[in-house]
């Protein structure tokens, strides 16, 4: 499996504060990698290092199998980026701003510039506002223009920092489907976000940042399956219930005053109910509960995520 982004021990310290602490990113080619973490967890600082905007205090990384920042001139034209929100010249129109960025790219063809700019604007739904000054754009339009800038030429890797920030629900849906579209065309996408729902909807892989550290990194499906379902029994004899559950082969059996529960593993829930009845345990209620991804992340980071949106 080749990696689109690979970092080893990537660290950044500002004075005495460690913003990013020995991050080993492994973003497989073709994946949509959700770079998830609460605000201030070091995601943007990591992205700045990935793009060569700031120098790591320790460690290093490769983009598209090229060492950075040594090969930045060769590799960055193949990388589209949105870093810490949109930023353009306020007194230029959206189209003129894209013209400027395209003119700065020595690998882009001047001949095809206008056509490419129009296509990029169309893709983000900004064609109608292309001639308006950036100053008069709404936050959502600014965000769309920044995404258009990342799409001026076909990219192998897109690094998108909070791309749905400031968008209305409709815009959010559009951007998420655009990300899926780009991935389907073969691009690798690193999508930084603080929204768990966004990761669940569009990502194939996930890396969780917490206080500058990468605390988890795996395919989303694997993370889901590791969130094992548990059987929960409501009863007035929790002790007997716990014994029965253990006898049935459930793992990590726990009990409280009014219930007992255990990890189901591959045991069918109906067999557990039958077993309990056989043992004469009075069952008042029975449920199979799977911890949500959110609970999983809370257990990883000890903090909640903003799951709205």
């Amino acid at each position, binding site marked *: 499996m080749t990696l689109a982004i690979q970092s080893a021990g990537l660290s950044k310290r500002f004075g005495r504060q460690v913003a990013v602490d020995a991050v080993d990113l492994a973003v497989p080619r073709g994946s949509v990698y959700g770079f998830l973490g609460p605000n201030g967890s070091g995601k943007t600082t990591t992205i700045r290092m990935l*793009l060569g*905007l*700031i120098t790591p205090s320790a460690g290093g990384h490769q983009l598209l199998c090229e060492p950075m920042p040594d090969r930045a001139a060769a590799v960055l034209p*193949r990388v589209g980026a949105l870093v810490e929100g949109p930023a353009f010249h306020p007194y230029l129109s959206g189209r003129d701003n894209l013209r400027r960025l395209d003119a*700065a790219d020595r*690998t882009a063809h001047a001949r095809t510039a206008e056509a490419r700019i129009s296509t990029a604007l169309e893709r983000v739904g900004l064609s109608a506002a292309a001639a308006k000054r950036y100053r008069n754009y709404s936050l959502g339009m600014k965000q769309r223009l920044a995404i258009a800038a990342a799409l001026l030429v076909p990219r192998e890797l897109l690094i998108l920092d909070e791309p749905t920030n400031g968008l209305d629900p409709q815009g959010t849906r559009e951007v998420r489907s655009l990300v899926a579209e780009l991935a389907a065309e073969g691009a690798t996408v690193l999508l930084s976000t603080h929204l768990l729902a966004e990761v669940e909807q569009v990502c194939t892989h996930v890396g969780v940042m917490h206080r500058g550290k990468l605390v988890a990194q795996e395919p989303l499906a694997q993370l889901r399956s590791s969130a094992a379902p548990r059987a929960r029994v409501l009863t007035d004899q929790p002790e007997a219930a716990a014994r029965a559950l253990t006898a049935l082969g459930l793992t990590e059996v726990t009990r409280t005053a009014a219930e007992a529960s255990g990890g189901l593993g591959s045991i069918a829930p109906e067999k557990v109910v039958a077993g309990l009845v056989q043992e004469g345990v009075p069952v008042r209620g029975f449920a199979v509960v799977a911890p949500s991804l959110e609970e999983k992340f809370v257990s990883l980071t000890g903090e909640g995520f903003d799951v709205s949106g």
Partner: protein
Amino acid sequence: MSPVEAAPVKRVSGRFLRSELRLIAVRRRNQVGLAALAAVPFVLAIAIKVAAPDRDNRGGGPDFFAQITGNGFFVALAALGAELTLFLPIAIAMLAGDAVAGEANQGTLRYLLAVPVGRTRLLAVKYAGILFGAFLAPLVVAVSGLVIGLILFGGGDVTLLSGTSVSFGEGLLRLLVICLYLGVCLAAAGAVGLFLSTLTEQPMGATIALTMLTVASAVLGQVQQLDWLHPYLLTRHWQDFGELLRDPVSFGALGPGLLSAGAYILIFLTAAWARFAGKDVTA
């Protein structure tokens, strides 16, 4: 391993430079600034037309005010001399202060670097934009001065500082060389400004710093007790442009000015590069 993709082909192209010049040209603030530079000769000429000329020599420069009523040509020279003390340095300070700090302040710097634009290339293009302004500004003042001067006072042969007369055509040629010399002087100020602009994310801070530096340099140049310092001052040789109005032209007298400007440009461009090449861009 997937097959190694060929690195994209880099082309030598003037697109980014043209984009930079366009960015400077379409900016309303720069247009207004240029209009203000062009307005000064008009104010000057009209004031002299309606009032008797002030015959006191002010500042260290040649006294062109006295000759204005005789020949409109001197409006251009008087305006250049007057604007050189403050207006022209402010114009360059606006442009140079904005160069890197302005992009950093707006956040556009991170997107340019991610394109990628190499940091050395970015400084080169930014300095080219400053040079454009440094040479354009004196020309605009001169042309504006010529226009209003000829309208109000008429033209004719130009009497030089050495007393001899040359044709109006040769006068124009000398005026052009004066503008080029002042362009070099302002380019030196611009190099200092570019360096200041790499130190901050506040463009106005860099602009004010450079303006204060040029004013301080002019003030220190008037203090006799500091004569040991005078040869090193940024503005020391700026008023030397009058040497181009002698017959024969003493190009040698411009040597120190050009040498000083060259040294300033070399030192401060190097400093700007040293500062910016490895700087963390966190804006």
